């Protein structure tokens, strides 16, 4: 009998109760979610969980033996540290399987106040080296770290080799400028950022202007991009704008695209990645169902281990369909930079 290969857990986004159920029903090992306030980095109007929905969501997932991870991954704002601490206390009371934190002050509070609460270091914590990961383990006892998407696969492997902290990487979803936790582009344009208010390029600053044959996107009045009617579009963030540089107008920072690790799943499993995360708490239950179902099928195929893994055309098509800008990339994973 062929031994089943160890495969990463599949961590899926839940911006609403139907999205959580879609993730669980389609094979997520864990879901991640947040409160309906600025303690999490997807603080969008009408999104996320109030207390009642949170209780119901946790019950739904845990009764089916799936884990619930609560993201409290923004940075406590001056004078309001109590709000973030209350969020951590609430997560502990609700019995979530782990909290995902970025703020070192909050990590310190959580580790001292709730020693039994499992801590994950958020991608917003921006730990890109094993020294940073091991620091957070030594000081706060983190059990898992989510790596920013700036690292190549070889660099991810180096981190894994030098730490006993489980490592989670992004597997699918909208790709930004990838400098998670350290990006100031949204603040530059609007004065608000994921770290501070829990939203990149908040919707109140966004205007889509339609004129014959084209659509313009403005963020706080700044023209970010112009699309012809047949051109795929992306999210209205500065990093995905087209700008004039040395006389040429192009996507100077990042194109509207989604990360997709389908093609390198075997390599990701082989280097010992503990979990892959799907981005997209702002997306609908439909997206969550589509992506979870596809990656579950791919991971199950990889787990069989009795034949070389090959990404099926149907998986590729399904993931490309829901991708930002209708295109996918391996991002930094396969870049030659160091």
């Amino acid at each position: 009998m062929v031994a089943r290969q160890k495969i990463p857990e599949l961590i899926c986004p839940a911006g609403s109760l139907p999205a959580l159920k879609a993730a669980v029903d389609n094979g997520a090992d864990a879901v991640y979610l947040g409160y309906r306030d600025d303690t999490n980095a997807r603080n969008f109007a009408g999104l996320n969980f109030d207390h009642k929905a949170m209780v119901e969501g946790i019950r739904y997932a845990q009764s089916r033996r799936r884990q619930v991870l609560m993201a409290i991954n923004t940075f406590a704002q001056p004078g309001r540290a109590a709000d973030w601490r209350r969020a951590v206390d609430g997560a502990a009371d609700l019995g979530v399987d782990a909290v995902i934190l970025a703020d070192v002050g909050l990590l310190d509070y959580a580790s001292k106040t709730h020693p039994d609460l499992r801590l994950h270091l958020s991608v917003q914590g921006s730990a890109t080296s094993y020294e940073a990961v091991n620091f957070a383990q030594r000081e706060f006892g983190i059990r898992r770290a989510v790596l920013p998407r700036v690292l190549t696969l070889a660099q991810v492997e180096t981190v894994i080799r030098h730490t006993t902290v489980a490592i989670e990487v992004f597997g699918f979803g909208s790709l930004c400028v990838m400098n998670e936790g350290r990006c100031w582009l949204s603040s530059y344009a609007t004065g608000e950022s994921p770290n501070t208010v829990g939203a990149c390029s908040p919707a109140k600053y966004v205007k889509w202007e339609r004129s014959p044959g084209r659509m313009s996107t403005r963020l706080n009045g700044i023209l970010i991009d112009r699309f012809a009617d047949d051109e795929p579009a992306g999210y209205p963030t500065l990093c995905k704008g087209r700008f004039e540089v040395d006389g040429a107008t192009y996507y100077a920072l990042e194109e509207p695209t989604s990360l997709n690790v389908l093609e390198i799943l075997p390599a990701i499993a082989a280097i010992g990645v503990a979990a892959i995360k799907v981005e997209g708490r702002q997306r609908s239950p439909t997206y969550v169902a589509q992506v979870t179902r596809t990656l579950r099928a791919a991971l199950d195929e990889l787990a069989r281990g009795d034949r070389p893994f090959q990404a099926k055309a149907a998986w590729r098509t399904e993931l490309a369909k829901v991708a930002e800008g209708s295109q996918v990339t391996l991002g930094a994973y396969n870049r030659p930079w160091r």
Partner: protein
Amino acid sequence: MSQGFSIPRFKLPRLFSAIGPHLPQWPHSLALATALNAAAKTGLLPADSLLPLEGRSFVVEVIDAGGQASFCYRDGLFRPLLSAPTAPDLSFRANLSAFLQLLARQEDPDTLFFKRELSVSGDTELGLVVKNMLDAIEWPQWPVLSSVTRFRHQPFD
């Protein structure tokens, strides 16, 4: 791959968009406002999530049908507007198949936006509120509806 009923991407013949705008639009507005009020009354649209809609005007334009529905939400009721407002607070614009795919939860609104099959103009934050409100609806598991709205594990073969 989809299980049961699946709505294809289609575009109505040009005849519809040629004739549609010349027909009265108020029946669409009345029908949509009535349906939304029914959804609110049954609790499908939770009362607290409707609060941000108070006093705002909306236009839903079905491009290939040449029709549009205009309504506002005032004093806790969706009310049809007899003529389209010149500057609605929020407008959605798509072909009929895209709206049907959205309603059946067959496609994700952001996906349709990226593919330029759905456009939103006006107050973007209000658009997000509406989108997230619709996403958070737990459709009743009626036998007929469940074939298009439930997310079952569908293995790829």
